[in-house]
């Protein structure tokens, strides 16, 4: 009996071990080199670039002269630079950018812009841009509308109205405040991001991966499939609608899409804003000798090549997306199916090699 009791005792001591979470066993941060590269060579400098593009836009706006078309053109160019710059930070919607006070994606780029709310706000002059009902009336899509919705001569006439300039200034202030907050918060959040271990729901790995996937799926659906009429809403197939295109008025939809893809591609490869190639997802997948289940061979290479293909098919278009949807739908369809091919590579293969957990709950390993 004594022997039995002691065996049961030993057994229960072992049980103590079982009660610790599997994640806690990992005592080194497996992705710290990758997170450091992303934080120092991508997140921080890309936000800095976006910040400075917004400042340049501010200068153009403050010195705008409604009697001078070149002043309008320079304002438009500054806006375009800022919009392209935004594409490189949209994926970082975790940590500071996902704080309720920031919510950069919703505050900076809720497209399509709601023109009637914008016009009403300008006319009434009394609005609170922090209300969620104003998400679609501000940010970069509002600039897209106000600076491009008609020809430059008519725009100059419109913009001689101080209320329109004031509205843009308010929209710009709103974005700058939020981006400044995010940039400041990253000073301290960097250590949290780089030091986060494991693959739990709130680990950097999980947050980062989910945003990477989300940003990619947003390009595929919101920026292409939805306006082109390849998507559905709650299952009901939607008709093509060129009025919901990102950058609809400035006709820069393909450039924006390409900038967004390039942003993800550089993160994937580990290329910093200085052009130096550091540790990216590519290197991690190579380290694991990851094999694709979707195409033959090496997963790291397969995803790399699919990024190149996706950007190549976009670059073939000579006109803006609205025009191509109307005149060249088969090529747009081809682009959409190339975008689609990437999804299982990221959503299944990459996720499983990076061990990002999908399920919140227990499993018995189906």
């Amino acid at each position, binding site marked *: 009996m004594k022997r039995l009791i002691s065996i049961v005792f030993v*057994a229960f001591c072992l049980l103590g071990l079982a009660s610790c979470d599997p994640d806690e066993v990992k005592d080194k941060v497996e992705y710290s080199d990758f997170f450091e590269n992303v934080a120092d060579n991508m997140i921080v400098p890309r936000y800095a670039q976006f910040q400075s593009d917004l400042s340049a836009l501010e200068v153009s706006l403050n010195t705008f002269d409604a009697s001078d078309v070149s002043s309008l053109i320079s304002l438009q160019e500054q806006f375009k630079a800022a919009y392209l710059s935004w594409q490189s930070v949209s994926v970082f919607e975790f940590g500071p950018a996902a704080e309720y006070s920031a919510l950069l994606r919703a505050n900076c780029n809720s497209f399509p812009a709601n023109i009637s709310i914008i016009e009403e706000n300008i006319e009434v002059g009394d609005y609170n841009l922090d209300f969620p009902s104003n998400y679609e009336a501000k940010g970069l899509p509002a600039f897209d509308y106000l600076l491009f919705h008609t020809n430059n001569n008519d725009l100059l006439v419109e913009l001689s109205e101080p209320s329109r300039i004031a509205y843009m200034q308010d929209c710009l202030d709103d974005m700058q405040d939020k981006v400044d907050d995010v940039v400041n918060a990253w000073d301290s959040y960097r250590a949290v991001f780089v030091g986060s271990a494991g693959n739990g729901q709130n680990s950097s790995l999980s947050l980062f991966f989910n945003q990477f996937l989300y940003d990619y799926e947003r390009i595929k659906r919101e920026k292409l499939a939805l306006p082109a009429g390849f998507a*559905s809403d709650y299952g009901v*197939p939607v008709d093509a609608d060129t009025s919901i295109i990102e950058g609809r008025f400035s006709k820069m939809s393909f450039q924006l899409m390409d900038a967004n893809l390039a942003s993800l591609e550089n993160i994937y490869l580990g290329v910093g804003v200085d052009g130096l190639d550091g540790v990216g997802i590519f290197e991690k997948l190579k380290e694991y000798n990851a094999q694709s289940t979707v195409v033959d061979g090496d997963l790291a290479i397969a995803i790399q090549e699919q990024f190149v293909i996706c950007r190549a098919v976009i670059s073939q278009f000579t006109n803006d997306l609205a025009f191509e949807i109307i005149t060249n739908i088969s090529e747009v369809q081809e682009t959409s199916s190339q975008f689609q091919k990437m999804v299982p590579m990221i959503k299944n293969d990459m996720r499983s090699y990076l061990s990002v957990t999908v399920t919140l709950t227990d*499993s*018995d*390993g189906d």
Partner: protein
Amino acid sequence: MTKIKSYSAQFPQWLHAETRIAPLVIFRIIFGLMMLASTVRFWSKGWIDSLFIQPNNFFHYYGFEWVKPMGEIGMYTVFVLLIISSLFIAIGLFYRWACLIYFLLFTYIELIDVTNYLNHYYFISLVALLICFLPAHRSFSVDVWRRPSIGLNKVPNWTIASIKFQLGLVYFFAGIAKLNYDWLFNAMPMSIWLQAKTHWPIIGDLFAEKWIAYSFSWVGCIFDLTIVFFLLYRRFRPVAYLALVIFHVLTGIMFPIGMFPWIMILSTLIFFSDDFHQKLLLFLSSLFKGRIKPLKAGNYVVLHGFKKKILTGLLVCYAFFQLLFPFRYLLYPGHLFWTEQGYRFSWRVMLMEKAGTAFFYVTNPKTGKRGEVVNSQFLTTTQEKMMATQPDLILQYAHIIKQEVESRGLKDPIINAEVYVTLNGSRSKPFIDPSINLAEIEEGLKHKKWILDF
């Protein structure tokens, strides 16, 4: 041969012969406390909200379409009742009612959504059903304290044996399921799972070794097949139990299987002798300063005539069902792990690595207009993941989409799905026939011809 004959003749007698009640009582207390802990854990992880309140749609079991979640207040009430009833089981208060309520409510929450299916939830449902029929409250319980006349010292062997049988089945069938080519001769999916742990300190490098993966696979298989027999023999029991604890602790550390290792480690204590349990009871009794005592002698239950026949009949039916049900997959053609027809409720635990991507398309039959479905508008991430590899859920999802689309005014939509699935590290292959209109396919238990070959 004569020996077997005499055993089989003695067996029914043995089932009704008397043994001490202690193991049953300890099991009741342990089971009640474990269920209490599991329910509290489930609640504290926020799963009531994320599994029963947040989802817009639920996947039902065939024949149980009518089981629906009850909204926020309803679901939290169910969990409060689960907590109370599991506590009542542990202390033995209104025992039969507590067991019945626990069984019904636990089974109810498991029936709400197939994507939550776990073998050990099924196990808990079965045990909760079993203990409704067992007199586990008739010693060392509040019920006996209130009504000493119902106290029992001895119970028939079948009461304890039925729980051992149920536990033994879990291991044995889990072992049988591992007797497949991939598991034994490719060390799959063990290799994939261990590969993901190679960053572990000290032992991590070992996990990359192929021979380790083979060892884990074979040891796991042999363990599952034999453990219950070693537990039954007094001589091997202590060593077998130690091995069992090590096995479950290891799997508990390595895989996100939650309460399962705990439940098995504690439940299998029932294999120990009645002496052992009697001592545990005396120890517990000393904690209560002897105010609650196990009975020294006295009543026992003996069933006679009709009652005995009914009970024996029920037990035999239950045992046969349990033994045969896991083999129903033989009625279906094709690779079981691929089609998953007859996969659930068969103790197939930690057996394969399967992942899929599903693209659904809705076509307007009048205009030919086609659109890709956004799965996140219908399903949670977990539901989507589960659906993408299980044909019956793929079909159900198509019907969920159909219902939503029709409610939005588009009648008779054509619904197709392109699904790619990888099994045990294989290349992703098309899983179902993409040309089939899933909206027209009826749900059922018949073979699904639209599943493509592995």
